[in-house]
């Protein structure tokens, strides 16, 4: 099942659902004919779309709002924060082409602060599925709740058979004794490659799909920190405010520390190009990340040996 099929079935089944878009119909092309007045395209007006969604939600509807992430959550940020966040209305935000997925569009279209902005809003939940199969498994729960939620839409398939979704819980692919990778979004597939390469070097490598970023699975983070393994965070997001920050917050809150190697955009936008080229240029391919992790892991071992002498 793909996103459009899911939203079609969900909306047809439930009169409360309103499908909205600020003239971005890529994921909902078939819906106008099916939903009639419950499909609302407001044109290129992200602020008005969100304000209207709040008004509709006030009257008991559950609007699902579509737009390119960068415009959806930044152009309309204050509308989301004020009209959706303050009253905690069940408006569901579907952000298209987040992070690296905006590939060659350039920095105007690069949403690399979406997780930071959305999780900063009280009442707002934040979900970042690994791929389309994962997302389709998560959305029914997200859409049927009475909370506002932001979802990083990803339409690529991972080919992985994901475990059922539980809000506030990470999906544990594997635990590792030496290294544990925490990842969200479409980088999950690169993380799988990284894991395989590192395992080829004889290391025990874990992989955690952090698909529920707010609420976040604090237990998994504290558990991994306590294990003393090298922790890796992988995200196509600015280093500020995303998963690396979440890990830091959880560790500090629990008076824990850990060696954490972050993969994130460090205070710069990425070089616009087709996606594979972006990954290569910015050092986010499974192979590049494996090499870097290996280096950090060796240093960690050397340091540990040094300190035990």
């Amino acid at each position, binding site marked *: 099942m793909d996103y459009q099929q899911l939203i079609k079935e969900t909306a047809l089944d439930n009169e409360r659902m309103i499908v909205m878009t600020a003239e971005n119909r890529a994921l909902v092309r078939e819906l106008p004919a099916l939903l009639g*007045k*419950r499909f*609302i395209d407001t044109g290129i*007006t992200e*602020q008005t779309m969100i*304000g*209207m969604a709040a008004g*509709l939600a*006030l009257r008991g509807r559950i609007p699902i709002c579509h737009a390119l992430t960068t415009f959806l959550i930044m152009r309309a940020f204050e509308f989301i924060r004020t009209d959706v966040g303050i009253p905690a209305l069940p408006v569901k935000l579907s952000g298209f082409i987040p992070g690296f997925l905006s590939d060659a569009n350039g920095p105007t279209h690069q949403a690399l602060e979406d997780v930071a902005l959305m999780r900063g809003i009280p009442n707002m939940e934040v979900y970042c599925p690994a791929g389309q199969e994962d997302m389709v498994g998560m959305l029914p729960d997200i859409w049927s709740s009475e909370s506002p939620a932001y979802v990083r839409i990803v339409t690529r398939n991972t080919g992985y058979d994901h475990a059922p979704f539980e809000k506030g819980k990470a999906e544990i692919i594997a635990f590792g004794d030496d290294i544990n990778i925490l990842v969200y979004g479409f980088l999950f597939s690169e993380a799988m490659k990284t894991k395989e390469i590192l395992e080829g070097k004889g290391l025990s490598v874990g992989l955690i799909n952090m698909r529920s970023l707010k609420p976040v699975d604090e237990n998994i983070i504290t558990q991994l920190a306590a294990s003393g393994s090298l922790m890796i965070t992988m995200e196509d997001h600015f280093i500020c405010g995303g998963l690396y920050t979440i890990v830091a917050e959880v560790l500090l809150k629990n008076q824990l520390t850990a060696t954490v190697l972050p993969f994130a955009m460090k205070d710069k936008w990425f070089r616009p190009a087709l996606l594979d080229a972006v990954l290569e240029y910015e050092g986010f391919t499974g192979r590049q990340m494996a090499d870097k992790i290996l280096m950090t892991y060796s240093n960690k071992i050397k340091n540990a040996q040094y300190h035990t002498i």
Partner: protein
Amino acid sequence: MPKLLQTEYLEVIAQKVRHHIIDMSTNGGCFIGASLSCADIMVYLYCEFLNISKKTLDDDNRDFLLLSKGHDVPAMYATFAEMGWIEPSRLKNHLLTNDHIYWHPNRNIPGVEFHSGSLGHVPAVGLGVAMDCAIKGKSNKVIVITGDGELNEGSVWETLLVASAYKMNNFTLVVDRNAFQANMATEDLIPLEPLIDKFVAFGCAVRRIDGHDFSAMHETFNGLPFSEEKPNVIICDTIRGKGLPSIERRADRWFVNFNMNEIIGLHAELDGGNIATIDSEILTVR
């Protein structure tokens, strides 16, 4: 023809509302100028025009009024008090932590449809409510009151484009045209005139009336919708500070925090007594 208008009754209520507003303009103060300019509109809509009562707040078929220019909230709460929606004694809780009566509207007060304070948001929220009514095939009216200064916000015009595209004739924007924004006259900062032409160009059916004339309001609001396929705009020309000559049409009477002597003087002034003496430094730029 609309039913006979009880103008005298509305005038009595409006006068009481203005007394409440004066009472809220001390001990921390309030945005008195905008509250007084909007008082007659608020009283007319709630007490006469809108199909809303305390008992029908949960009814799908009732009308809706959303206050986008949040500074008018003393006029709104005072009207609620006069209608029996809230205990009049609650108005004494203005700016105290034991209640929710502060400088902007919020839904903790029964009758408030939506919070406001950030300008240019509530037209879109109101349009969403109107859209819900339209989807249900209902003919209830959704009215959003904006300020004229608020029209500086691009999102207001964005929302009118959408309302016009969707032919939302159950949606009405009421502009409290008191000709001031914060500490300036609108026409001295970002001129708005010719305002009718602007709304017409955005696809609205527009009327312009005296926002202190109950008969004019009665005739105009009862003419809604003005068209089969256009959103409605009613520009209400009003006087900032209306009812108190000592503060009428003054840029420096936007936000005020009067002392007790001034409050006593203003109550007397409102009832036709001498012009109150205002000694305190009341120009507050917020």
